[in-house]
C-alpha cells in the first residue's frame, strides 16, 4: 500500500494525479476514495479529500496540498473509522491491499510547477513499509543537481506510522576529505525543503541522514525551467545478495565521519 504526498514553497506548487487502475490496466474497486491524513493534537486526523475525478483518475489540486498532509486510497471497510474515534487515529496502517503484490508500484503522478510555466513530474509513491523509525539515507547529490543553476534544493519526504513531528539531523559530507560540509534538521511526517548551496555540488559530496528514512527528491530551477527526480537507494545498484552488507559498510563509514566531528 502506498501513500502520496505533495510539496509547496514560496515559488513552487504541486498537484497529484492518482490513477484508478494498476500498471496492467486493471481497474481498482469503485468503492475506493481519496483520503487525507494530517497530524492534529498528536493524532492522525483522517478526512475524505476534495478532489476532481473522471473515469480513470483522481486529481488533487494544489489548494489541497501542503508539506504535512498525505493522501491514500481506502474505503469504509478497510479504513475502520467509526463514531468512537471520530476520524482520529493513533497510527497509520495498511489502508488498502489491492496492489500489495503488484510487480510495479501503484503510483501517482506528482507534478511541481511555478507561475511562469516551468514544470516537472515523476511517478511517485511512499510505500507503507518505509514508514518506520530509524535508518539512514545515503545519496550522492551531484548527479541530479546543477551547480550552474539559479537554485537547487532537495525535497526530503518522511512518513511515519506514528503521528510524531520529531527533528533528526542531515549532513552534507565530503567522502574525499571525510568532512561534514553542512548540516541541519529534517522533521518527520513532512516534505522538508533542504536548500543546497551551489558550492556543495561536487562528485564527492553526499547527503546522509541520521535515524530517519525518507525519499530525497532533487530539484533544480534555472530560468524558470524545473527538473525533479529521485535517486535510487544504494542497495539497488547491487543485484547480488551482498548488497545490504556492502551498503552497511559504506553507511558505517559515514557514521564514523559524523561521530568524529
Amino acid at each position: 500500500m502506498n501513500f502520496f504526498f505533495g510539496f509547496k514553497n514560496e515559488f513552487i506548487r504541486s498537484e497529484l494525479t492518482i490513477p484508478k487502475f494498476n500498471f496492467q490496466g486493471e481497474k481498482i474497486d469503485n468503492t475506493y476514495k481519496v483520503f487525507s491524513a494530517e497530524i492534529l493534537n498528536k493524532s492522525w486526523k483522517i478526512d475524505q479529500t476534495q478532489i476532481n475525478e473522471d473515469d480513470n483518475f483522481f486529481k488533487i489540486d494544489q489548494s489541497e496540498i501542503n508539506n504535512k498532509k498525505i493522501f491514500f486510497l481506502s474505503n469504509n471497510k478497510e479504513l475502520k473509522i467509526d463514531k468512537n474515534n471520530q476520524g482520529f487515529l493513533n497510527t497509520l496502517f495498511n489502508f488498502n491491499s489491492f496492489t500489495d503484490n503488484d510487480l510495479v508500484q501503484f503510483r501517482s503522478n506528482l507534478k511541481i510547477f511555478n507561475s511562469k510555466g516551468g514544470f516537472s513530474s515523476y511517478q511517485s509513491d511512499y510505500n507503507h513499509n518505509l514508514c518506520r523509525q530509524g535508518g539512514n539515507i545515503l545519496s550522492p547529490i551531484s548527479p541530479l543537481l546543477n551547480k550552474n543553476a539559479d537554485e537547487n534544493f532537495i525535497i526530503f519526504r518522511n512518513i511515519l506510522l506514528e503521528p510524531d513531528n520529531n527533528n533528526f539531523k542531515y549532513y552534507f559530507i565530503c567522502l574525499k576529505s571525510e568532512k561534514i560540509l553542512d548540516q541541519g534538521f529534517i522533521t518527520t511526517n513532512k516534505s522538508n525543503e533542504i536548500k543546497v548551496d551551489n558550492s556543495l555540488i561536487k562528485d564527492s559530496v553526499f547527503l546522509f541522514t541520521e535515524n530517519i528514512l525518507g525519499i530525497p527528491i532533487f530539484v533544480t530551477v534555472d530560468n524558470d525551467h524545473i527538473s525533479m527526480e529521485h535517486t535510487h537507494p544504494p542497495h539497488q545498484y547491487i543485484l547480488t545478495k551482498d548488497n545490504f552488507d556492502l551498503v552497511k559498510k559504506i553507511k558505517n563509514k559515514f557514521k564514523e565521519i559524523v561521530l568524529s566531528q
Partner: protein
Amino acid sequence: MIKKLFKTEKIIKLRNFFSISPTFFNINYLEKNISISDGFFWRVDDNFSTKFKFTNLIKFYFNKESNVEIFFFDNNHNYLNQIALNTKNYSEEYIITKKIVKNINFGVFYIFHRSNTKIDSILRNSCYVGYSYKNSLYSYVHGNTPSAKKNISDNFSKLNYDLLGSSIFKKKYVVQKKFNSNKTEAMILNSTPIDQRILINDEKIFLKKGHSYIHQIKDKELLEINSKCYLLRPIIFEYEKDFLNVYHG
C-alpha cells in the same frame, strides 16, 4: 544443484517465455563480476542535447580503480561508437555530441564498468540521463529497465542486449499518468531476446531486438502498450510551450 540449474540464464529465459515462475528479467543472479546496464535513450534531434551522469560503482562500493565504457547504438541497434572513461571521481558526467553518434537523431546507449580485479557481485548501472530542449535546463530521469550485461573484464561484444523477459502470452503495460499536454512522446526499447509486434494505443509497430522507437501520443489521455514483453516501460517527453518534462512511465 537443481536449484542452481533452475536459475541459469537459458532456463530463466524459458521460465519467462512460458510464464512459469517468471523472473521478468533474464538475469542469473548467481553470476559474479557482471556489469549490467539499463537501456538509456539519447537524442540529439531538433533542439535536443543529452547528458549522462553516473556513479563509478566499483570505486564507490569496492574502493577499487576502474574504468567505464559507454557503447552507442542507433535506433536500429547499429553500433555507432564507444568511449572509455578513466574515472577517478565518485560521479562523472558526459555530454553526448552529434559527432559521437554520427549525426543520427536518436538511439540507445549502455554503460559498463570495467576492472581487472574481481568484485564477486553484479552491478546495475541505472543512473541519470538529462535532456535539454532548446538549450534550457536538463530534465533528468533515472534508468528503468536492466537491458544489457558484460563481464567486467571482457571486451565489447554485441551479444547480451536482451535482459528483458519475453513471453508467449500477451502483456499489457499502462502508464499510470493522465496525458493532456500539447505534445507528448513516449520512447520505447525492445531489450527482449526476440523481435516484437507492439500495439501502442492505436499504432502497430514491429520492433526488432535492440531497436527503439518514439511514439507520438495524440488525442489520448492514456498510454497503453500491448506486447509480449513483461515490462515495456517508456520514457515520456512532455512539452508545454518551450518547457520540457522527462520522466519514466
